[in-house]
């Protein structure tokens, strides 16, 4: 019985702080992880819409050049202007670790039964767990290769660098200057990973409203469901646009754009550790003439 006193020590840590941990798990998925996800996808999808974002500056650039230029500018800004970047990163990694470890514990308490009860919400329940499992694998690969420099896991062995954000990302996804089979496989894994994670976020947003008691009536749950579906669709498009944009980006062309960026702002061109066998002549021109190279 719940009113029988139980000695505190015989109850596990998880049980003693049951509600608090459950709610922190729910919250951490939205702040900071979800907020970061949104910002991350908006930045990355600029590879597709960056030319528009540059306004007049991008007038003479092609779509790809404008995207690369804008994205590169964003990354440089993030790395130079955001204070305590490492602290922010550490917080984020800690939140992801917390969310996934608890998520595993919670997920193991359930038994999926979509075979007999194939209702939509039940499928989402099951997918929420599967997307968590595969999603954390993807995040690990993504962060390890592009942030921690585990380049031995990157086809072609590219080390991502924020000095050459767009070109080294394109190289990592394509597996080299030209698209390789390994690159296609890595990009396919990216496709699965980002698709599942966006679903995980949108569906989690929907269930968290019930968990916290924000949506109670069936109608409220349904309406919030539509809102979450709209948010999910928007983020999904941003995620797919990012992947497609970098997969199709020519790394040589992107390097040229990045070097033109440094020229435009009168900064020394950072040393290139990628495409060393390629003789890339930095453009001596203003970026506004990039499109005519």
């Amino acid at each position, binding site marked *: *019985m*719940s009113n029988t006193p139980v000695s505190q020590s015989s109850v596990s840590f998880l049980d003693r702080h*049951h509600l608090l941990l459950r709610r922190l798990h729910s919250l951490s998925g939205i702040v900071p992880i979800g907020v970061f996800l949104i910002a991350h996808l908006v930045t990355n999808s600029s590879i597709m819409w960056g030319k528009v974002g540059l306004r007049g500056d991008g007038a003479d650039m092609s779509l790809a050049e404008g995207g690369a230029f804008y994205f590169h500018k964003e990354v440089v800004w993030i790395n130079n202007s955001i204070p305590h970047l490492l602290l922010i990163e550490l917080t984020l990694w800690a939140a992801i670790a917390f969310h996934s470890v608890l998520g595993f514990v919670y997920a193991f308490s359930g038994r999926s039964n979509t075979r007999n009860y194939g*209702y939509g919400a039940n499928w989402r*329940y099951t997918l929420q767990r599967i997307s968590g499992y595969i999603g954390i694998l993807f995040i690990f690969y993504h962060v390890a290769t592009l942030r921690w420099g585990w380049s031995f896991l990157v086809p072609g062995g590219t080390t991502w660098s924020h000095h050459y954000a767009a070109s080294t990302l394109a190289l990592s996804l394509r597996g080299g200057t030209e698209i390789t089979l390994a690159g296609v496989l890595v990009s396919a894994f990216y496709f699965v990973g980002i698709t599942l994670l966006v679903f995980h976020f949108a569906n989690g947003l929907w269930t968290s409203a*019930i*968990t916290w008691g924000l949506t109670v009536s069936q109608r409220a749950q349904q309406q919030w469901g539509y809102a979450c579906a709209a948010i999910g669709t928007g983020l999904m498009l941003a995620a797919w646009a990012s992947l497609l944009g970098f997969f199709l980006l020519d790394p040589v062309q992107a390097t040229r754009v990045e070097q033109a960026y440094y020229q435009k702002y009168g900064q020394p061109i950072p040393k290139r550790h990628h495409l060393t066998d390629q003789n890339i002549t930095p453009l001596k021109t203003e970026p506004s003439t990039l499109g005519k190279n």
Partner: protein
Amino acid sequence: MHTPSTAKPGTRTITMKIKRCDGPGKPERWESFSLSVTTGQGMNIIAALQVIAAKPVTVEGSRTTPVVWDSGCLEEVCGACTMVVNGKVRQTCSALLDQIAPNDGDVVTLEPMSKFPVVRDLSVNRQRVFHNLKRVSAWVPIDGTYALGPGPRETPAEQEVRYTLSTCMSCGCCLEACPQFNQEPDSKNWDTAFLGAHAISQARLFNSHATGKELAPQRLDALSGPGGVGDCGNAQNCVKVCPKKIPLTESIGAMGRAVTIHAVKKLFTMK
């Protein structure tokens, strides 16, 4: 549930495929029985089981023991006859063969609920369902040595919500279908395993009762603890299978909200 029958007039032969088990810990086996059904006679699964019990001979022609099952009211209000029919949980007294097996040669599979220990064949021990009502103090405290006077008045709006919640018959359908509610053989774990939609919804019923409210903090403590409302994974199967159409997911949302507020209050009063 009250879909019109699609069965053609006349008599047809169907097969009842039943999962059998001679007792706790004994092996399971499947046995099939052939049954002739006449359209329009309104035969339900309980009546079919009675016919089989009168002559327990399988389709292979071997004689076996009569199948054991539970039933009570025969009008879908007691919950005793709850079983898994063709893979989905439901009451068998309201399962009419003209609807679920309308054609000659149709097969109806019957299994006991999987989340409760089997007593024998189709009969299970649902004790944990009632144990969970105790965990959330699902009653109105009126015990005393003196007359309490007339009960409190309730508005029609409150009545409407509470009436639906009160139709729960503790059948266990919502628990059987819930991916978060699982068989718990060791009753020592019953106080920390997930309560399920049934008890969460009953806590809501009694928390909204003018006198039952008195125990609300106690109920919310139980709902905040291990196995409480936080363990719900929002698969929402419960609301789909509840024969009484109880808005269980609303109850889960309402109790999620109550538990949130309760926790914040406790934080500030440091109790």
